[in-house]
């Protein structure tokens, strides 16, 4: 098991404070009521995520990772507490503003890719652009650039069923980047992929984080993720068990070995 000191190092705190907070949650709770059964999926989460960070969220199944993602991704509202994205209180937004936020600010990457089955790779990538008001010509041009970025330029006309899981996930990444979001939310992006294709996806995510400065928040069981993220966050039973910088954890791991 991993055990670390209670507090992160002063150096890390100093470095973090130089950057802007892009997502902040305050006392975030989520309670699911189903009949007589009450589930506390989140029991008060306070977290600050900075621009350009790459955060891995880990935790056993049922610990509340997906619930956490829904809240900070403006897909669902917390039962208690608040979520700020770019200092904007999500609870105060109207339906149009929420749609705008989801369209422009955040890119979502799902475990099961969620491509639209009847659209080609290019059409999948350009759909969010259409919602964002980009002209069809401009969309096609940018869509091809994004497909090139994920290495699928030659397969732009393929439909999801004609592609492997890894290729589908790469299209999904291109789609998530359609409107140049500042945040990428990935819910177990490599869970359905084999080791090698998983590596490819992770490489792409790392490149996006380093070259474009996209904030990436990634739920995962994949220990390779540890090698590339800035911070790691453990959730257990709906609460943050621990947040640590990678170097601190690596020291720990090394010492165990």
């Amino acid at each position, binding site marked *: 098991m991993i055990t670390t000191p209670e507090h992160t190092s002063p150096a890390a705190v100093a470095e973090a404070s130089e950057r802007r907070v892009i997502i902040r949650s305050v006392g975030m709770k989520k309670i699911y009521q189903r009949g007589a059964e009450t589930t506390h999926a989140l029991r008060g989460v306070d977290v600050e995520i900075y621009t350009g960070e790459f955060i891995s969220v880990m935790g056993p199944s049922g610990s509340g990772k997906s619930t956490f993602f829904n809240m900070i991704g403006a*897909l669902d509202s917390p039962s208690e507490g608040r979520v700020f994205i770019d*200092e904007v209180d999500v609870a*105060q937004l109207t339906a149009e503003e929420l*749609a705008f936020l989801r*369209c422009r600010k955040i890119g979502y990457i799902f475990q099961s890719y*969620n491509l639209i*089955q009847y659209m080609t790779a290019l059409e999948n990538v350009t759909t969010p652009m259409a919602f964002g008001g980009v002209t069809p010509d401009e969309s096609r041009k940018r869509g091809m650039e994004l497909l090139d970025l994920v290495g699928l330029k030659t397969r732009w006309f393929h439909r999801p069923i004609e592609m492997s899981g890894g290729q589908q996930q790469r299209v999904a990444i291109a789609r998530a980047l359609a409107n140049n979001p500042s945040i990428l939310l990935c819910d177990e992006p490599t869970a359905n992929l084999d080791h090698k294709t998983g590596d490819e996806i992770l490489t792409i995510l790392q490149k996006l984080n380093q070259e474009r400065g996209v904030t990436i928040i990634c739920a995962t069981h994949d220990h390779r993720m540890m090698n590339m993220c800035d911070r790691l966050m453990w959730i257990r039973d709906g609460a943050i068990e621990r947040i640590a910088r990678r170097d601190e954890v690596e020291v720990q791991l090394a010492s165990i070995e």
Partner: protein
Amino acid sequence: MKTIDVQPQPLLGFARTLRIALSGVKYRLFRALVTVAVISVAMAFLMNILAESLIKMTVAATAKDQIAEMRLVDRWIARLSIPPTTAEIIASAARAGEPAEIENLRTLGRLDDAELTRLRELASAADTYLTFFSELNYGRRRVLVGSAESTAIFDRLQDATARETFFSRLAEMKTVRFVTETEAFDTLLNEWPVLRAYTERIREGQATAIRTVQDNLNGRTLMQSLRAAEGPFGQVIRDAGFNLSPAEAEHLSAKVGAVADTALIETAMNQADIRQAIAARLDILPGDVTPSRLWSLLSDRDNAAWYIGVMNEQGFAASGWQPDDVIALADSRARAQLLKQAERATMETGGGLMGIGQRMTWLAFVSMLVCAVGIANAMLMSVTERFREIATLKCLGALDGFIMTVFLIEASILGLVGGIAGTLMGLVIALLRMLGLFKSLLLESIPLGALVTASLLSIVIGVLLAAVSAVYPSLRAARLAPMEAMRIE
């Protein structure tokens, strides 16, 4: 507090929205086909009853004119035999369609223009009340006017106390709605003696005229004499005071001739030897020889010529006849039968939407309702199957309105396809069925314009039905939480 700077989401081009909706149809083609089938069956039913009733109404109108024309002989026989009743004169003055009928009234009653106009005015008012009283149930009529019926009611109400009683009792009858203001009826009652005098003049004129005509029959029957209506006997009728134009006279004598010839041919058929000969020619038993068998035999030229020969041999006066005359008789008899059949088949038309009748309107309504439930169910299935797709679209920034539009368009496409298919199906079935019923009569009186209108109406109803049924499913789709996209099954 900080807010975000929103630009309004552009409406996605119609083409793109349509494509997403169409893809939905293509993606679940089988379900879409089942829905289309449900819609088309309902629309076929609606279109079928609409088309059949439209055709029946037109055929009924055509048949009515032709049947009136067919009864020309009966009308003249009646006119030349019995003087009409007061009520009949009023009805013919009030409703007369043809100028000839009005002319008859003028000459028989020796009315001038002013009198004729006055007669028609009063008659049409009186006719309204006569209809009202004849449709009133017996008990009520008894309370209002005692045992009086028809024009005797007007006579009875000439009496001041009777009239007073009538109006006060009418006022007490809350459930009866009188046809006009009571003042108007009072006025008519005051004028009744004038109208009555006119009808008496016409009646007496006609009675005298009938006597003149009967005196000039010279021992022949009226029917036999009418055969010469285009010649001297026509002049007798005119001199007596009836209005008979040369054209009508010619028509009348031809008709009378045809009636007589038809009767002669059928009489000949009943003669034992001829019956035997027909049976031999048809290769059936003599007992099975019926007028309709005979007439269908006679529609052939050779058979007609043969029958004329047989009739001449047996002493029936058919010497001047040509086969074509007999064929013409056969044709006009077939036509008369067709018209009678059409009259019977169209007896119950009218009422409800486009004349389909109350019961059919109700049935059509129920079938629409069942269809709506079917469409709603299919659309709910579509929404459920596409849960994740819808949620994903919302994660990508789709507005609720957009999702709703997509599903409404999808339903409308199904409605349009089903509506067109069903309408065509219903129309073809209706045409085939009506062709079987009315045969050649249908081709003469096909209401093309009305059928096109009904087809368009039925297609529009199909689309609207589908769209309205899809409102709830579309709302469910639009309200779907975007986080459903995260869920993995």
